[in-house]
């Protein structure tokens, strides 16, 4: 030992550094190997524990789900199974998490009484307190998980707690809070949007749309109330939802939006009018031709929409005007719209092609296999 220490002290300092680097790197590599195998071990044992807990819970849950729900006190047998679940779960966080995940998983595919009984189980086992605790955590992922669980299990009592996360700094927490509110706010759907000033991504729009698609259509809000929202994301979302849920009573408000200074709103408005088959908007839309001539995107949208809602010769004349537009996709869209608009429009289209400048476009739009 003394020899080693003596040899070490005799070594030049550069050599000592290299040896130290080697040792540190080697120890690091060995540690990673240990972590790697222990992580695998932990993962496997956790999986095993989860599987045991899941199968233990499933039996009791199956019985509870099959029992008829009522406003009265649960039947003695239900009480028995609940206490059984409580006993199985104990105070273990892992067991509580497994149970929560299991309830969410089961509830996803159920509606009516069975789904309600699962919500009841969630409350009776005080898992709402467990999820609420998570929703107040400092860790963003735990907090988001808590919000997600509360929403999935329809815990309306947590509405205010969730609402306080609506302007959280972390985007995932914000998104989960938003989705939780959408899910829980069943009566005055989406009213919290009035005060919503954070960004609203396309991903969120998709999630909200999916949720609204599965809910009672009669309770859908009138999306036109948000067309002039100070948050552009909310206004665009409202336009998109009007289109998706075909809210025909919004047509007049949409026509007024054609004069909006924001171009992205106008683009979406024109699209929406087309998708709603709002023939009454054909004149206002066609009147925008010259104003937006230099904007390729808007010109293309007008050409496409007029193909859907145009009905008179003056609309087809606007479309034939677009056949000389400098942008190819605008010309193409106009030709396609005219081709689909009946014989008179087709005649205008063929006349515009008297010099053959549109021949290849015409061949394309006439090809049956290329019809979109």
């Amino acid at each position: 030992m003394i020899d080693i220490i003596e040899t070490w002290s005799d070594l030049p300092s550069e050599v000592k550094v290299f040896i130290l680097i080697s040792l540190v790197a080697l120890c690091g590599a060995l540690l990673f190997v240990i972590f790697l195998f222990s992580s695998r071990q932990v993962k496997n044992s956790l999986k095993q524990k989860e599987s045991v807990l899941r199968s233990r819970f499933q039996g009791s849950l199956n019985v509870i789900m099959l029992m008829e729900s009522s406003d009265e006190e649960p039947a003695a047998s239900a009480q028995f199974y609940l206490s059984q679940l409580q006993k199985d779960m104990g105070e273990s966080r892992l067991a509580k998490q497994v149970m929560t995940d299991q309830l969410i998983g089961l509830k996803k595919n159920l509606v009516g009484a069975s789904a309600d009984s699962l919500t009841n189980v969630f409350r009776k086992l005080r898992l709402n307190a467990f999820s609420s605790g998570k929703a107040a955590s400092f860790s963003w992922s735990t907090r988001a998980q808590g919000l997600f669980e509360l929403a999935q299990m329809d815990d309306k009592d947590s509405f205010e707690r969730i609402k306080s996360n609506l302007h959280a700094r972390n985007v995932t927490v914000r998104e989960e809070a938003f989705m939780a509110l959408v899910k829980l706010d069943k009566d005055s759907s989406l009213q919290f949007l009035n005060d919503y000033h954070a960004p609203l991504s396309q991903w969120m729009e998709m999630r909200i749309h999916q949720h609204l698609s599965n809910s009672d259509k009669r309770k859908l809000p009138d999306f036109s109330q948000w067309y002039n929202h100070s948050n552009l994301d909310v206004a665009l979302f409202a336009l998109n939802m009007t289109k998706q849920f075909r809210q025909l009573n919004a047509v007049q408000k949409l026509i007024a939006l054609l004069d909006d200074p924001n171009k992205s709103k106008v683009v979406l408005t024109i699209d929406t009018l087309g998708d709603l088959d709002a023939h009454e908007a054909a004149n206002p839309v066609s009147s925008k031709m010259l104003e937006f001539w230099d904007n390729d995107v808007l010109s293309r949208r007008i050409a496409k929409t007029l193909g859907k809602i145009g009905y008179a010769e003056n609309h087809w004349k606007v479309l034939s005007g677009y056949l000389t537009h400098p942008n190819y996709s605008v010309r193409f869209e106009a030709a396609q719209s005219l081709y689909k608009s009946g014989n008179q429009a087709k005649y205008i289209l063929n006349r515009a092609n008297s010099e053959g400048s549109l021949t290849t476009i015409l061949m394309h739009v006439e090809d049956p296999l290329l019809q979109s």
Partner: protein
Amino acid sequence: MWKTPYFNLDDMNAFYFVVNVLIFIYAVAISSAYLILAVMSILEMRTYMRKNYFVDHKMILSSPLAPGISLIAPAYNEALTIIDNVKSLLSIMYNNYEVIIINDGSKDDTLAKLVPAFDLVKVNFDVQYNVPTKNVRGVYKSRNLAFKKLVVVDKENGGKADALNVGLNVSKKDLVACIDVDCIIEPDALLKMVKPFLEKREVIASGGVVRIANSCVIEEGRLIEVKLPEKLLPRMQVLEYIRAFLLGRMAWSKLNGLLLISGAFGLFKREIALAAGGYNHNTVGEDMELVVRMRRHMHEMNLKYIVAYIPDPLCWTEAPADAKILSRQRNRWARGTFETLKIHRKLFFNPRYGLMGMLSYPFWFFFEYLSPFIEFSGFLFFLFLVAIGRVNGLFFVPLTLAVYCFALFMSMFALYAEETSFFKYTQKRDVMKMIGVALLEPIWFHPRVVWWSLKGNIDLIKGKKTWGEMTRQGFVQYKKTEKKVA
């Protein structure tokens, strides 16, 4: 006392000292850079995994709000596997998409096989040459409604970049996914790749992890079971890919400094790709070049943008199984890197291009492009010192050990990252094998990679522009062999 007739001893000592110090500084800089990137990658990956705890990607599948995607797959002499490959692409989980197969003037019967298999007929597609390309001979669509998402374009041979540009011209969707036709794409790959575009409007491109599929069980274009390659060379590449994809790109994505999205599978905004001018025909590294050009375009237009990256293994490719083919691939990669760096040399430490100019580009130049030169020069210098008897064993052994141990450490870090994230190699003996590979790689595989890269640069000076033939064993062929063995 050692003396030479030509040099003063003090001058020589000063020369040795300067070279040693320069190599040492470079070694410390490159090691620190990789270490920092690795730590950042791990942290970013953890965030990604936690964030995606809540995500149900299948929701995108049924949503009418999902953006349209064109899958562009160039095919050159792929007659052997083209039918299976197209079927695999047509069965991807996504609703609003089309598959555009570009037959890049194949000399074999690629097109002749496609026509009857998918009941294709020539249509009057009005092809616009938004990006100039070789002539398109015809566009084909299927009469069978089951294949209505399929578009086959037959064109004169012009190389991969040219074929991809035709795809960009023909595409009608907002997003384009450029892929290698012989890759195995995970069924939910598009659902995952499209998500960054949905989350942030500024995203212009996204890339995913490419993994090696040699020896994996593949059936009808689907990956059934992940296995470690049986041969040593592809196994080495597995480790190399894990290290590169999990410990590097994730960090660059976090910094928004990613310059490379693998040509095997990348998703781009079509409008931006076209505005940037499409793929460059004059480089063999067209995948990296396009990303750099798109980024440059956004900078020059003063537009905010993000190049996203997701760590999920989404695409599986067959790695070269013999040294000759691997050498051609690495030769091409080296040439591609140099060509891209040369084309965009304006970015070098140019503050106008933000992080890309000040960090990403210099990193690629110093640590990706120059590293084979430095490593090889270091080796030559070492041989020179051996020849003149100036090697000090007391320094040499600990230094070599330190380099080796650091390489081992990084490989173990990568394996740990894989284990705690995607856990694809589930068998314990696979992990043991990978540890063995990590022990062997720095002395058996890495020197060869350095040599092939150098050769690539020499070929570049000689004016070599070709891709180099890439013979593949083919997954289907593998499956048949397996059955025969069974």
